[in-house]
């Protein structure tokens, strides 16, 4: 029987991925990066991890969340409070932020009975409710004056490798999920939750599981971001702009593709860097245009574009078929 489906993860792809991680790991040492570039790369890694984790829910399960800022903010404030008040080592405080954000995501269980646009609208409500609650919860978040964390130059320098490792792990997890039987179940739920139940897949269980995982990872990215910024305030951390940011990065990069959000995050951060400073009013307009272009011409985003280019090039190199 000619039953040879492709291997779960092609070996060359694994090698390229590992090499890229190692290269990025030695870049600051070898190239003597400016502090600015060093920090922007750190920010990029944090953004990548968040975008990838959003995509587990939005892309793999197909439930588009406009409320992930809630988990991002909770991760950040819990981590901040744990390191400030309990004086635990910073990495432990990050972990605490991730766990609490994941637990918060379990609370989304009733929402997950909704599908499609109904789910999306409900997540807007949850995100905004979280923003209001945490803005008024001054004892915890410092209210509108925010929370200042001790400024630690060494930590900020080291954060580069923490963030890189984190992003690499999340990227590897994305690929493994996408290619595994677990990912297959998620895609089946995305296609038709009722038909999935008819072949023995419990949509509620897997949705809950993925939402918790996605929430915990986004919470962890929020916690790293808190250490990165040293100052966090609820209006910004829980802001609707952040929730939209997750959606934008994933959609521009390629919703449902394993690694598309990485590309989306790169575009997002670069646009932010080069347009936010010079033309702060322009960058949202540009995202809007990118979004329209993606939806009209390449629903799989930059990843889809990338695949198309690869397909074009391949026959030329391989000499036919």
């Amino acid at each position, binding site marked *: *029987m000619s*039953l040879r*489906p492709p291997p779960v993860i092609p070996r060359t792809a694994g090698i390229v991925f590992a090499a890229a991680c190692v290269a990025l790991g030695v870049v600051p040492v070898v190239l003597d990066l400016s502090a600015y570039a060093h920090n922007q790369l750190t920010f990029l890694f944090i953004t990548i991890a968040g975008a990838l984790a959003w995509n587990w829910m939005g892309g793999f399960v197909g439930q588009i969340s406009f409320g992930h800022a809630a988990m991002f903010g909770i991760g950040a404030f819990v981590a901040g409070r744990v390191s400030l008040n309990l004086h635990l080592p910073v990495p432990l405080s990050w972990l605490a932020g991730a766990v609490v954000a994941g637990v918060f995501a379990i609370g989304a269980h009733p929402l997950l009975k909704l599908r499609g646009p109904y789910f999306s609208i409900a997540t807007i409500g949850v995100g905004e409710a979280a923003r209001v609650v945490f803005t008024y919860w001054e004892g915890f978040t410092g209210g509108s004056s925010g929370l200042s964390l001790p400024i630690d130059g060494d930590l900020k320098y080291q954060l580069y490798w923490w963030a890189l490792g984190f992003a690499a792990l999340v990227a590897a997890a994305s690929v493994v999920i996408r290619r*595994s*039987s677990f990912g*297959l*179940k998620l*895609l*089946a739920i*995305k*296609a*038709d939750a*009722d*038909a*999935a*139940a*008819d*072949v*023995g*897949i*419990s*949509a509620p269980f897997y949705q809950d599981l993925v939402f918790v995982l996605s929430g915990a990872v986004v919470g962890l990215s929020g916690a790293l971001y808190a250490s990165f910024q040293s100052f966090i305030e609820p209006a910004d951390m829980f802001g609707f702009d952040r929730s939209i940011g997750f959606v934008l990065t994933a959609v521009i990069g390629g919703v*449902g593709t394993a690694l598309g959000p990485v590309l989306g995050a790169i575009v997002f951060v670069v646009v932010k860097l080069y347009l936010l400073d010079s033309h702060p009013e322009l960058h949202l307009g540009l995202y809007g245009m990118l979004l329209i272009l993606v939806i009209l011409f390449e629903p799989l985003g930059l990843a889809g574009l990338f695949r198309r280019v690869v397909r074009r090039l391949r026959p030329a190199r391989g000499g036919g078929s």
Partner: protein
Amino acid sequence: MTRLVIRGLTKRFGGLAALDGVDLALREGEILGVIGPNGAGKTTLFSLIAGSLRPSSGEILLDGRRVSGLPAHRCVRAGIVRTHQIVRPFGNLTVFENVLVAAIHARRPGARPGAGHARDRAGEVLEFVGLADRMTQFPGTLTLAGRKRLELARALATAPRVVLLDEVIAGVNPTEALAFAQLIRRVRDERGVSVMMTEHVMPAVMSLSDRVFVLDHGKQIAEGTPAEVVANPQVVAAYLGTEAEQAVAS
């Protein structure tokens, strides 16, 4: 031996009883045809057995174990699987993946569920329904008959003891219909699966079924061999109307 026992099964939607006190038994290795006019409650009956709907009252036992009230995915794991009248393939997965995802939870005595096991099983089932050469295609590229085969393959991949086929033959051309009837017989003969099927294509049901069960307005009106059922005046009345009604109509 009796595989599936249904006692006093009732489903009400508001004031309307879509199914009203149905008693039914499906034997091991049997093909049972369920027929009835449109709106008789056939699909409701299937939805109740498959766990897509919860019964208002009554019970369903699979090999003596109560399965009524279980959600659909638990019914599948217990061994009852259904196919849909309107095929519902996972359009974003290949034909192979469509079947693979159904095979993941398949449990057979002695065989542990696992990825490798599921792959073998998915390949074997696709071979069985005659779609082995379409594995890497997407369901959208298949003909209707092909998608119906896929629907059947997906159901079989779950390693069921009972399969409920909702109008699998309807809508395909006569040659395909004949091949499909053959396939359903092989599901019973070679895989030992008990089959319950509804069908509008009467010759197909009558030639395939060991027994036929007739529903009308949610109630059982007849049960027996195809020959007995066809001769039953109540069945004829349900399908064609009584003489008095025909007189009024004409």
